[in-house]
């Protein structure tokens, strides 16, 4: 008596073939249905909750993938901390090599004659930065029109400098080693840890962080309470800014970006 064609092994093989085929067909569909990673611009109509670093029960970042990024439309703050009142305004822009172009504008309540710079402890931005060693290079400091010399123009350890008595100074530098790639994720997706290199200021001094670039996706403030961590809001079409200033003692921002292409 011959075995029936619908025996258990045959049924298993048939089911197996169906499942394998279904997955392969889905693979083809997923390949053609998934958009290529393109430079993304933040949808300015949303609150742009942080996609990474944000709590799971909050709305994810609304990101509009646009084939052609919109024209630049950055609105730099004309008032507020570091500009018209005591505080620090930090403006950072991601560069194609994963570094950041950063400037810090500082306005103090009382004049100072010394300036201290120190590498940021970006491990505070999250465990993924535990191995990161940020370095500020091409450091330029100016008090009014007068430049202040920083040895080797770099900050890899604490540096102090005497400056003319002032309530205002400005620092610009290239920040390296502060970006990690998000894995698994789309190509060029990363998170940058942004903190001032200016050190020794009043822990309560308000700090505003603005991240400029068409590939900035979200800002997260890891040292705030869970409900406040999605701390960025759109500033024009191609920038995000903190919705509320941070105290200097908690001025840590994780910016999710697509590292710009050359």
């Amino acid at each position, binding site marked *: 008596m011959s075995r029936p064609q619908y025996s258990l092994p045959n049924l298993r093989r048939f089911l197996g073939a169906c499942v394998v085929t279904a997955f392969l067909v889905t693979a083809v569909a997923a390949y053609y249905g998934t958009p290529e990673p393109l430079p993304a611009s933040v949808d300015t109509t949303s609150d742009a909750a942080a996609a*990474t670093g944000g709590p799971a029960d909050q709305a994810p*970042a609304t990101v509009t993938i646009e084939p052609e990024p919109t024209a630049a439309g950055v609105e730099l703050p004309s008032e507020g901390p570091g500009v018209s009142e005591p505080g620090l305004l930090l403006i950072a822009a991601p560069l194609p090599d994963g570094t950041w172009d950063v400037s810090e504008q500082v306005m103090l309540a009382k004049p100072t004659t010394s300036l201290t710079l120190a590498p940021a402890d970006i491990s505070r931005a999250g465990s993924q930065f535990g191995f990161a060693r940020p370095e500020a290079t091409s450091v330029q400091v100016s008090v009014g029109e007068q430049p202040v010399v920083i040895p080797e123009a770099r900050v890899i350890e604490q540096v102090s400098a005497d400056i003319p008595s002032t309530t205002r100074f400005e620092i610009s530098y290239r920040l390296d080693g502060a970006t990690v790639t998000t894995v698994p994720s789309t190509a060029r997706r990363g998170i940058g840890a942004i903190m001032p290199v200016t050190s020794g200021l009043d822990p309560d001094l308000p700090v505003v962080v603005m991240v400029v670039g068409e590939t900035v996706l979200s800002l997260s403030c890891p040292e705030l309470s869970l409900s406040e961590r999605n701390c960025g809001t759109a500033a024009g079409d191609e920038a995000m800014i903190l919705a509320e200033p941070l105290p200097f003692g908690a001025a840590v921002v994780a910016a999710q970006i697509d590292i710009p292409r050359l």
Partner: protein
Amino acid sequence: MNPDLLPLALGINRVILYSGYVLLAGTFTFWSLVWPQGRKDRHLLILSIAGIALTTIATVAGPMIDIWIAGMTWAEVFSPISAAALFVRLAALAAAAFFLVDIVNYPIASWRRALPLTIVVAIAATMVASSNAVGGPWEVVKLVATMGHVIATAAWLGGLVALAAVLIPRQYLAELDKVIPRFSIIAATSVVVLLVTGTLHALAIAGGFQELVTSDYGIVFFIKVAIFGAMLLMGNHGRKYANGVALRAAAAARASKEAKINHDKLTKGGPGMHSLAVAMGAELAIAFGILLTTSLLVFVAPH
């Protein structure tokens, strides 16, 4: 969930994925290239089933962590290639699960090696497609190196696990004089491939020797190399020991008229086997260290 736990969750998931892949691909490779007669060994079957289960869990859990916990969208998590790779891997795992019975029911020789080896290569390819080898400069070098690295890892580490699973119960010592030389060839080839591809891949990812030695990625890479070196020493010691034990067991079994008594003495007792088990256990522990440092390398890889 605390966002700081996200990298931890992804890291744990990655270790599960690597472990599952090593178990599954290692056992399939071991059956196909080293010991086809062991296809019905219960321990190897358990290893392969565990490998299928762990790889499937990690393959599904990875995107779920990103989408549900990190709040990312499908388009943020996947590129077209990595999305396709996900489903191709699931297809390969389904093939492994549904056709495992067919694989072990017949001698895994000649053309019957095609199915298990195709499954291994398919899963390895999906891991490469989801890795940082895709894109950027030196893409072809990185892709080839990573593919060689992933397959050699399965052949060596997975084979080692399979060998331990066969050795430790001491049921097949008489066959070890055939199995160990075959495995030694696979292991030696794999070690050479791992050294070459690992170095090439690290240089390509870091962007050059200077960049490699001065970066965090380089530090973790050299830690991995040191652990790898320790494993080589341990493996060399263990395999020499295994070879000696196997030869003595086989010779004694052939020579003695009281073969069964002597065989039992040699295979089920004595300090030799205990030492060997300790050596292989240490080797496997070091192998786990390599998996951990490999998953750590992903986090510190330069962009």
